[in-house]
C-alpha cells in the first residue's frame, strides 16, 4: 500500500518517558539510582562561579600597573565583602586619600602588574536542579546528574515560550475550538496548568499572568501578540529562557487553530492531576519541542495507547494541512500518487489527495500535511 513519511508531534496517552537532568558544570548528585522522586525534588546541585568584576586599580589610583600590588589591602585568594576597602593610596595629606571599595562580596580572583587590572569574583551561586517529572532515577552520571524515568501521558506542542513548570491541570473551555477569553480565567486557576481551546489573545495571556497561572496550553496564538508579550520579535525558534511569568505551549501553530481533538481529549481525561510542562523549543538540528508530561496512566484504560504512531501516512489517515491555501483544515487521505505533480506555484512535488468533510477532494504537497492522532 502507498504511504509517505511525515513529521508529526507526539501525543501518547501511555508512554515511557526518560528525562536527562544534567548540571552544566560538575557538581554533586543528591539522589541514588532506584530512588523515586517527585517533580520538585532536587536531584543535583552545584556552585555556579560568581560573576567577575574587573576594576582597573592603576587607573583609579593614578599609579602604574607594576605599583598596584603595593597599594592592595586584599590580594588574590582573599575573601572580600561588599563595601570593604580593597586598595588605597597613601598620600601625605589625608584629604587626598583615595580608597577603593569592593562592589561585591566574594574573593579577589586575580591581579595584573601589566594592565593594573584586579578581578573580583562574587560568591558562587547555588544551582539546584529539580527532577522536573515524577518518576524513578534509573541512571546516575557521577558529578553531573541523573536520568529520571516516568510512565504517563506525553504530549508535544509545536511551539512554546517560558521554562519548566508544574501544576494541576484545569480546564477553562468546553471544546477544542472555543477561544480562551480573559473572563474564562478565574482566581482559582492560580498555580494551575490551564487548558484553552483554539486561541489565546494578548488580553487573555495578560490576565493569566496577573492571576498567577503557571502555564497555558492552547491551539494557536497570533504572532503580533507574542511580540507584545515579549517586547521583541522572536527571530529564530530557540526559546525556553523567557521570563514573562508564565509558560505557554501552542499545540497547533500561529493563528486561530482549534486544538487537535485527540490532544484535547487526552488533557481533559487528566483534569485535576499534576503535570510537568516546558515551553522550551528549538527548531534546528537536535529538534526540541515544548511538552506536557502527566505522570501515571489515564484512569480509563480504554484510552491507553502505547504506540507512537507509525511515522508515515496511508490512505484513510486523518491529516492536518499546515500551509496555505488550506492551512489548518483537517481531512482524510484519499490517495498518494507516486509521480511528481506540478502544483499552482509550478513546483513539481510529490502530493497526496485529501478528502474534506464535505466530500471535496483537494491536492496538497506531501510536505504540507501532518498526521493527526485518532
Amino acid at each position: 500500500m502507498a504511504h509517505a513519511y511525515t513529521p508529526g508531534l507526539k501525543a501518547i496517552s501511555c508512554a515511557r518517558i526518560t528525562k536527562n537532568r544534567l548540571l552544566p558544570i560538575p557538581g554533586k548528585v543528591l539522589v541514588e539510582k532506584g530512588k523515586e522522586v517527585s517533580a520538585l525534588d532536587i536531584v543535583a546541585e552545584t556552585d555556579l562561579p560568581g560573576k567577575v568584576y574587573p576594576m582597573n586599580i592603576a587607573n583609579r589610583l593614578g599609579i602604574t600597573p607594576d605599583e598596584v600590588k603595593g597599594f592592595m589591602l586584599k590580594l588574590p585568594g582573599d575573601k572580600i565583602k561588599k563595601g570593604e576597602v580593597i586598595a588605597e593610596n597613601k598620600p601625605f595629606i589625608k584629604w587626598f586619600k583615595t580608597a577603593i571599595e569592593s562592589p561585591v562580596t566574594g574573593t579577589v580572583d586575580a591581579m595584573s602588574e601589566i594592565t593594573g587590572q584586579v578581578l573580583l569574583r562574587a560568591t558562587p551561586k547555588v544551582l539546584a536542579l529539580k527532577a522536573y517529572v515524577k518518576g524513578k532515577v534509573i541512571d546516575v552520571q557521577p558529578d553531573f546528574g541523573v536520568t529520571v524515568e516516568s510512565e504517563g501521558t506525553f504530549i508535544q506542542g509545536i511551539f512554546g515560550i517560558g521554562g519548566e513548570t508544574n501544576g494541576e491541570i484545569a480546564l477553562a473551555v468546553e471544546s477544542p475550538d472555543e477561544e480562551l477569553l480573559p473572563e474564562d480565567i478565574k482566581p482559582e486557576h492560580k498555580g494551575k496548568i490551564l487548558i484553552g481551546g483554539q486561541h489565546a489573545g494578548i488580553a487573555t495571556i495578560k490576565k493569566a499572568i496577573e492571576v498567577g497561572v503557571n502555564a497555558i496550553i492552547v491551539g494557536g496564538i497570533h504572532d503580533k501578540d507574542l511580540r507584545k508579550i515579549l517586547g521583541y520579535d522572536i527571530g529564530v525558534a530557540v526559546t525556553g529562557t523567557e521570563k514573562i511569568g508564565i509558560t505557554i505551549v501552542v499545540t497547533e501553530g500561529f493563528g486561530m487553530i482549534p486544538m487537535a481533538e485527540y490532544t484535547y481529549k487526552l488533557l481533559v481525561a487528566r483534569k485535576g492531576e499534576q503535570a510537568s510542562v516546558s515551553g522550551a523549543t528549538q527548531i534546528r538540528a537536535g529538534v526540541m519541542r515544548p511538552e506536557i508530561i502527566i505522570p501515571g496512566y489515564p484512569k480509563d484504560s480504554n484510552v491507553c495507547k502505547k504506540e507512537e504512531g507509525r511515522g508515515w501516512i496511508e490512505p484513510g489517515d486523518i491529516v492536518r494541512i499546515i500551509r496555505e491555501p488550506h492551512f489548518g483544515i483537517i481531512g482524510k487521505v484519499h490517495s498518494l500518487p507516486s509521480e511528481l505533480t506540478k502544483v499552482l506555484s509550478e513546483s513539481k512535488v510529490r502530493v497526496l489527495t485529501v478528502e474534506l468533510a464535505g466530500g471535496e477532494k483537494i491536492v496538497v504537497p506531501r510536505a504540507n500535511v501532518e498526521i493527526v492522532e485518532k
Partner: protein
Amino acid sequence: MENNNLNVIIATDCGSTTTKAILIEKKGDTYRQTFRGEAPTTVEAPFEDVTKGVLNAITEVEELSGRKLLDGEKIIIPSNGNTGADTYVSTSSAGGGLQMMVAGAVKAMTGESAQRCALGAGAIVMDVLASNDGRADYEKIERIRQLRPDMILLSGGTDGGTITHVVELGQFIKAADPKPRLGASYKLPIIYAGNNKARDQIKDLLGDNMALIISDNIRPSLEHENLMPARHKIHDIFLEHVMQQAPGYPKLMAMVSAPIMPTPAAVGAMTQKFAKANNYNVLAVDIGGATTDVFSVFSEIFNRTVSANLGMSYSISNVMAEAGLANILRWLPFDIDEQDLRNRLKNKMIRPTTIPQTVESLQVEHAVAREALRLAFEQHKALAVGLKGVQQERSISDAFEQSESGQTLINLMSLNYIIGSGGILAHSPRRTQSMMLMMDAYQPEGITSIAVDSIFMMPHLGVLSQINDKAALDVFYKDCLVRIGTCVAPKGLARENENIMEWNVVEDSGKKHSGILRFGEIIRIPMEGNAKLTANPVRGFDLGEGSGNKISRKVEGGTVGIVLDGRGRPFNLPKNHSKRIESLNKWYKAMDMYPA
C-alpha cells in the same frame, strides 16, 4: 599537492541534514560529474557516526553508476576498470560547522581582521570581543562564559606595540574560563595571533588552562594584514581537536585522501579559483534555511561573511525582524494583512519543511528571500573593506575625493559574475525568478553575468581543487554552473519612460535584436548562447565606460537570456502604493516570472 593521475574521483559534503556524494570521471581530456547520491547525515543519535551517512550516499552512487566503489566499509582505491576511485575527498558542516569567538584590541582594526580571518577559514563567528566594543568589562566576561565555541582566536596590537589591551583580553578570557562546545574532556583551543611581544604574558596567562597555539600576528602593522598563518592554524585545530570530538570523524579522516575542509572554506576556495582563472570580480551566495553565506573576490581580495540568522526556514522570522515588515511587503504585487503575513512566516519557522503551493505563497517567499539576500550583502559590504586606521598619503586629486580608509571593496560596477546557490535560488520553478531575486537584492550595475550552482557542488569542487585544479574547474564550468543570463543595468536616474539607452544584440547564431530602453522598464531577450551587445546610454547613464559612453561587449545568454534593467541605479520602488503594484506587475510580466 597537484595530482594529475586521477581518472575517477568520489567527493562528499557532509551537511547538517544531508550528506551528498558526487562521482567525477575523466572523459577524454575533460573531467565530468557523472552521478550523484545523497543520504541523511548520521552525526546525531541514534547513529552518531558520520561515516554511515557517507557510505549510504556513496552506495547510492554505486547503484546509479554501476561502479563498485565500496568494499564493506572501505572505499576501493585506486580505480581499476569499473571498480574503485583514485581519490576520495570531503567537506563538512555537520554538527553546526566550526563555531568561533574572536577577540581583538580595537574593534574596527584587529577585531575586524580577526573576524575576516575566522570567516575566511569557514567559521561562524559567535561574537567579536574588543576593548572598545561598547560593553562593560564584566559584560564581556559574562558573554565569554555563556559561549561554548569550538575555539577562540585572540589578536590585538601590532608587533612591538603596546601589550596592555591584548593582555587584558587574555585576562578576561581566563577569568571567564569558557568550555568547548563538543566534549568537556578536552582543553578549549585558543590561537594567539597578536602582538609578538605579548606572547610570554599570554603563555603565562592561558598556557595552563587552555590549549594555546601561537601564530604570527594577523596585523603585524597597521598597514598590513596577514591572515593566512592563523587561518592555517584554524584548519589544523579544526582537524586535530574539533573534528576528533565529532561522532565518526576520526574514521572519516582516515578515509580521505586530502584534509577535510569546512564546507564554507571549500566554497571560498572554489570562488577564488574561478575568479583567478578568468580575472573576474565575483560574488557568490549560498542562502540556506538557517544561514546565508556570502563570498566575494574583488581585485583578487577574497572575503567571506556568514549571516548566521538570515535564512528561508529556521531563520525566516529573523529576516522579518531585521528587515521590518514594510521591506518585505514592498515586493508583493498584492495587499496582505499584516497579522496574516506574520502568522504565515512564523508557521514556516516552526514547520520549516513546508513548501509554497500557490503563486501568492511563492511570492511571499521570494519577497523574504530578497530581503535576506540584501541584508546578508549589507553585512558583507561592511566587513569586506580596506584596512582601517591606515595612514594614507594623498595627492591633490585624492584630497578632492575625500575617501577614507576602510571603504568597502565591493564595487557593483566592476562586478563580473554572481553565482547563487541554496534552494530558493537553485530550485525556483522558473529561472527568471532566481535572476530577478538576485537583481533586486544586489542591484548590479553595468554588465553582470548571473548563474546558479544547481545542486550545490561548489563544496566538493573546492576541496578537490586542493589536489587537482583542472578537475575542479572542468566540472565547475561544465556541470556545476547553470548560466542563466546577463543583467545589463545602466547606472543613473531619469523620469519615467525617458529614453535612457539604445541597444543592439547580435546572437552568435546571427539573430539580431535592437531597441530603446526607457527608464522604469525591463526588457528580456531570451537566448541560450552568447551574443555581442552594443549599448549607447544617454548622458547621465553609465554602463562601466563612463556617463553617456558607448559600450560593446560579448555577453553570456542562458536559461533566462539578456535582461536590460532600466529601473535605474540606485533602484527605488515607487512610493505610491498603486504605482508600486503596477510597476511590480509590469516587471514580473516582462520577466515572465509567474504564471498568468
